């Protein structure tokens, strides 16, 4: 049941992306083409999604706990604006603007068999791991120090 509901959420997400047209890179790039042939669709997708989730979230969070877990997992809290946040978003935006894929739609396209999506998702996973390298190195160094200290 736990698994089925999680899968259902994924299915709904994909259907939402497809219905909204966000699985068409042209539509995404069209939204970002402010100075050219502007396609406002993505704005309406955001309005619908944010509106629905704002309401849904409020209702759900009245509960003490989720259905299949003991606690809610809020987003990691952080100092308001960090270099990581802004630099990361800027970098993400460049990749997004180049190809019109962000993580969600790229996975739907991956499933549909688009060769470009295979390349994109593979590279995305590599990029995800690269971001972790400093933290991994730091953790290994700390462990080495702990061992050395006996």
């Amino acid at each position, binding site marked *: 049941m736990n698994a089925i509901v999680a899968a259902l959420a994924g299915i709904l997400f994909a259907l939402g992306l497809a219905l909204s047209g966000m699985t068409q890179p042209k539509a995404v790039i069209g939204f970002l083409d402010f100075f050219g042939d502007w396609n406002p669709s993505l704005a309406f997708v955001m309005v619908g999604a944010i509106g629905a989730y704002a309401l849904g979230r409020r209702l759900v969070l009245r509960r003490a706990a989720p259905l299949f877990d003991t606690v809610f997992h809020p987003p990691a809290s952080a100092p308001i604006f960090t270099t990581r946040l802004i630099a990361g978003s800027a970098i993400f935006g460049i990749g997004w603007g*180049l190809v019109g894929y962000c993580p969600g739609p790229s996975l739907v396209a991956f499933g549909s068999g688009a060769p470009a999506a295979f390349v994109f998702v593979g590279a995305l996973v590599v990029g995800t791991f690269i971001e972790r390298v400093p933290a991994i190195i730091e953790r290994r160094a700390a462990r080495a120090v702990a061992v050395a200290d006996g």
Partner: protein
Amino acid sequence: MTNIANPLLGGLLIGASATLLLLSHGRIAGISGIIAGAFREPLAGRAFRLWFLAGLIGTGVVLGLVRPDAVGAPDLALAGVGVAGLLVGFGTRLANGCTSGHGVCGNARLSPRSLVATLTFIATGAATVLVVRLAGGAA
């Protein structure tokens, strides 16, 4: 006149999906985080991610078969697609979120961080599209 019904309805579905994930597992429907966490956490903690991704990808499989026109391909050489993928993978983890995590979920709860993130990635996205267009389109 652009069709706004489909984008709005599609958006409602996305919001409903995120609500469902929050209700069932108490988790944020931020796809970049779900992907990253699918590799990281111990299996017991990450099963929901694997199932969610299976639903997402599986629906793509079905769409590819019954509605191939619903899923488009980018207009860019594969080398460029690879670079874009690296930037998106790296950047979303650095920012700890993407269009679903920050754009939808974060903004829905009026998170200032998410608003800043969203405005930033839209800005650089738009700048990128402009530069590519001025450079005569990507080969």
